[in-house]
């Protein structure tokens, strides 16, 4: 702990400088970045299209951007995408909400109470560093190939990450703040509500973001493994026919969805903890 305090003055000066540097460049920086990103995407798409059309690469393996777009429009117009996306979204959000409802309180409680943490931490950490997707066949055996097994997989993937981060958030609270609150006769409720929870919030939000990202992959992999409907099943069906264009379109949709969810949670995290800086 003394180490942390000692380290502070050493790391602060360069950070302050860095912030000044970026502030000075800010007027032109995002513009240049956007131009490069956009240019890079356009060039790659154009080269891909050209390579496919001229037969430099086999379209059967790589498809082309235009074919992917056409496949996407077909799927949207026929309602195939939305019908399956509804199922997947439902499974995803139920699983995620359950994970938040269970993971945040359990994690915070483990961060707060030493004996609880000592009891459950080894088991939780072992699960955290293990790919919980390994449990997928087992979950399917227990719950069948329907909706329940997908919700369970999203829950398992997300809840561990969320709980570990909630625990870490509480533990990272500066003990001096807790001592100060205690010195002013704060009771457990006040210590928790006014010191521990606000201090842990950024880490909890980071946990939600990571958990939500892992949940997207979990629901898709679970549907790929065995399902009756959903985007994952759609991907699996097209994959078995080696229809690469719709396969890539759906993969792209999932990637964009995952990116959007984590960007949204990042924005919410920054908004709810902006007072911290």
């Amino acid at each position: 702990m003394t180490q942390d305090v000692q380290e502070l003055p050493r790391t602060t000066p360069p950070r302050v400088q860095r912030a000044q540097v970026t502030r000075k460049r800010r007027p032109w920086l995002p513009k240049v970045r956007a131009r490069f990103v956009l240019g890079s995407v356009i060039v790659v798409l154009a080269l891909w299209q050209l390579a496919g059309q001229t037969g430099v690469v086999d379209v059967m393996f790589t498809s082309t951007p235009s074919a992917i777009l056409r496949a996407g429009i077909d799927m949207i117009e026929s309602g195939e995408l939305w019908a399956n996306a509804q199922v997947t979204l439902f499974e995803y959000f139920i699983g995620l909400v359950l994970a938040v409802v269970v993971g945040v309180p359990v994690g915070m409680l483990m961060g707060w109470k030493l004996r609880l943490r000592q009891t459950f931490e080894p088991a939780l950490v072992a699960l955290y560093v293990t790919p919980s997707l390994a449990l997928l066949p087992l979950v399917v055996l227990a719950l069948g190939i329907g909706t329940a097994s997908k919700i369970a997989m999203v829950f398992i993937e997300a809840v561990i990450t969320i709980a570990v981060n909630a625990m870490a958030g509480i533990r990272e609270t500066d003990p001096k703040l807790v001592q100060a609150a205690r010195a002013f006769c704060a009771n457990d409720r006040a210590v928790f509500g006014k010191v521990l929870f606000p201090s842990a919030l950024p880490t909890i939000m980071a946990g939600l973001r990571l958990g939500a990202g892992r949940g997207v992959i979990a629901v898709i992999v679970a549907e790929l493994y065995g399902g009756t409907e959903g985007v994952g099943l759609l991907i699996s069906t097209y994959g078995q026919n080696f229809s690469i264009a719709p396969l890539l379109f759906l993969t792209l949709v999932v990637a964009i969805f995952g990116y959007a969810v984590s960007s949204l949670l990042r924005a919410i995290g920054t908004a709810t903890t902006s007072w911290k800086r």
Partner: protein
Amino acid sequence: MATTSLPRRKLPEKSMSILLGGGFLVVAALVWQLAASLELVNPFLTSSPALIAGSLGEQIGSGLMLRSIGTSALELLIGFGLAGIVGVALGLVMGRYRYVEYVVEPYVWLLYSAPIVAMFPLMVLTLGLGSPTVIAITFLMSVVPVVVNSAQGVRNVDPKLIQTAISFGAGETALLRKVILPASVPTIMAGLRLGIGRALVGVVVGEFFAGDGGIGYNISYFAGHLGTTEVLASVFVVIVAGVALNVFARWLEGLADSWRTDLG
């Protein structure tokens, strides 16, 4: 236990956490075993620790376990090894040259958010069923954290250090070797640790869909034959591997960073 002098306090606290943490695992296993033995739960679905231990012994005896671990370990080694080399190299360039970062960035995030496993039919088509496809999935899954952390590590190098080195006439190679690389090692190591976690996911899940051997393949195969006990035995191996890899990565991380704390 109650009368411990102040300087000794650390030891009982540590043994307490081992006692409670280990105790919980033992109690959980005992309850599980008891519930299965008394048939309070359906042993077909839940198996029991004794059955799992028996299955582990059997799989080790028949040589299946060693063969499977060998297959999976090789896939992990090649896939993650490639991810480490490509990831660190790309990350260093991205962190050093702003424009390279802007150009490559969208694809890195696309790769991070995309369900890589969903593209396995495409990989099977080009690489065939089996290890090469699993290696490709492992590589794609684990490369992103390595790239992102390496780039971050380079960006976080104190600009004063770089300016000083340049003032003393350091070329780009010397700058990289003597300033940037050593200064960003901790961040790179953290990226490698995150990467190996995802690599393990890649191996296991890759083998579910495209494997022809290995631990993940066994899990999927046994599940297909309703062998809960054998599945749990393989899952146990995956958990042990996950913990062991993480402990190893943390140890390496500490090792790579040890010279720094000596200075402080």
